[in-house]
């Protein structure tokens, strides 16, 4: 329906590229997405932090009724992932079988295309998650 905006993505590209979250210096509450004041104590004394690349799956769904821009990828998996101090909602990719999507399953962050405006418009990139396979090989670098 709408062309993808330049500025809407650009101004929060750091959040899209790193999932940088906020932590309240007053009460210690950590949250994503960032807000202007702490949702717990209302303080505006906040600092930005980078989450770890790995986390655990809280809950998920396989969405068939996808919105505009996601039709090429449907169905898509959407999940709530715990990343240390914060939870994030994200798309889950590279799912080989739904057995991998148990509560508590290890997930790792990956950089992917989120949506694109046809063949001529902008591409939005962002962070998604995939099941982490500890196949005896080296751990994921920070």
């Amino acid at each position, binding site marked *: *329906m709408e062309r993808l905006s330049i500025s809407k993505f650009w101004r929060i590209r750091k959040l899209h590229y790193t999932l940088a979250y906020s932590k309240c210096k007053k009460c210690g509450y950590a949250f994503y997405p960032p807000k202007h004041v702490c949702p717990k104590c209302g303080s505006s004394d906040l600092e930005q932090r980078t989450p770890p690349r790995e986390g655990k799956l809280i809950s998920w769904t396989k969405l068939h009724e*996808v919105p*505009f821009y*996601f039709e090429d*990828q449907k*169905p898509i998996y*959407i999940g*709530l992932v715990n990343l240390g101090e914060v939870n994030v909602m994200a*798309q889950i990719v590279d799912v080989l079988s739904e057995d991998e999507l148990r509560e508590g399953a290890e997930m790792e962050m990956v950089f992917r295309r989120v949506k694109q405006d046809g063949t001529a418009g902008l591409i*939005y990139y962002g962070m998604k998650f995939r099941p982490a396979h500890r196949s005896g090989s080296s751990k994921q670098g920070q």
Partner: protein
Amino acid sequence: MRVFITGYGLSKISRWFGETLEDLAFKSVKDIENKGGELREIDALIVANSFGGILQSQNLLSSLIAEDIGFSGKLTMTVENGGASGASAILTASSLVKSGLAKNVLVIGVEKMSDYIGSVFNHSISTFMNAEHEAFYGSTLASGFAILARSYLSKYKYSEEDLGAWPILMHENALDVPHAQLKFKITEEQVNSSDIVSSPLRVLHSPPVSDGSAAVIVSAEDSSIPKEKRLAEIKFGYLSSHLMELSLRENLEEFYALKCVKDALEKGSSIDIKKVDLIEISDDYTISAPIIIEGLGLSDKGSGLRSILDGRYRLGDKPSINVTGGTKSRGHPFGATGVYQVAEVTSLLSDGKVKGARVNGELGLVVSMGGIGTVLSGILLEKV
């Protein structure tokens, strides 16, 4: 200053490809007249609508409608609060009346969801989530409720099939409701084999695509509309908003805003919710029903779905819940739904025309919801 509903109008909910927003609004307002409501004393008009700007490219909808149906020059505004738009409009109307700014407020809920293809509908309903950090990744209202559903079912040890009890009940309840969108029985087999919308939620757990309009007149106790026209009294109303993002919620199986509303209700009206005769709740995507039932204290944490499976809340139970079919079968024209809910309960407490079966009750509670339990509202109506 006491506040009364002195008129209500309903139009059938469907995918009205041939009707505009103004057409639908005109229908429901005409229906007020058909049912004996008094339109000549209206001094304010509030339109409840959520998607006029996005899907019809039309803001200032209340002005457009006001001029179209003959209410020029009144105190006019549009209220948008997701699926709680209708309730919010009625609470606003009630405040206008209590403050003396108006005597008779015409509240029209109107919505069209059917003008575009499915992927656009899916995008539209995702606007009730955080646009840049949830909907950005392809989430929609359906996927959000689905995540809640999976979490609830797993935490309280239910099967996916257990969810089916609710839509089956809703479809039964709508069979004798003239304006309902889906008037046919459904079976467990049909529910569990319907297409997956967002696992574990299926088509038959989800609201249909609905266009519709409902309207009510909210009047001051000293308005010039005669006392005989009073259909119900708005005893109390409250609304609360809480976290939008699922990533910030400590418990996926609770709506904190509902707690605020319940507390306000109990304090402000000294009501025992368990003793209310009729409760009308926004049962979006089926999982909202047990969550709201538990949140209202009608059932213990985690037992809401069990109580539905055990046959509670049907016609004749105290409370009876969603006797007109809920968002599942009556339909869910989002911005208008709250007005439908209040109009239906008003009718059940007065002329009973909204449903074939006779329903008895003194008190009715309307619980409307916006987003994924982000906004909850409670409006308490009493028979006059």
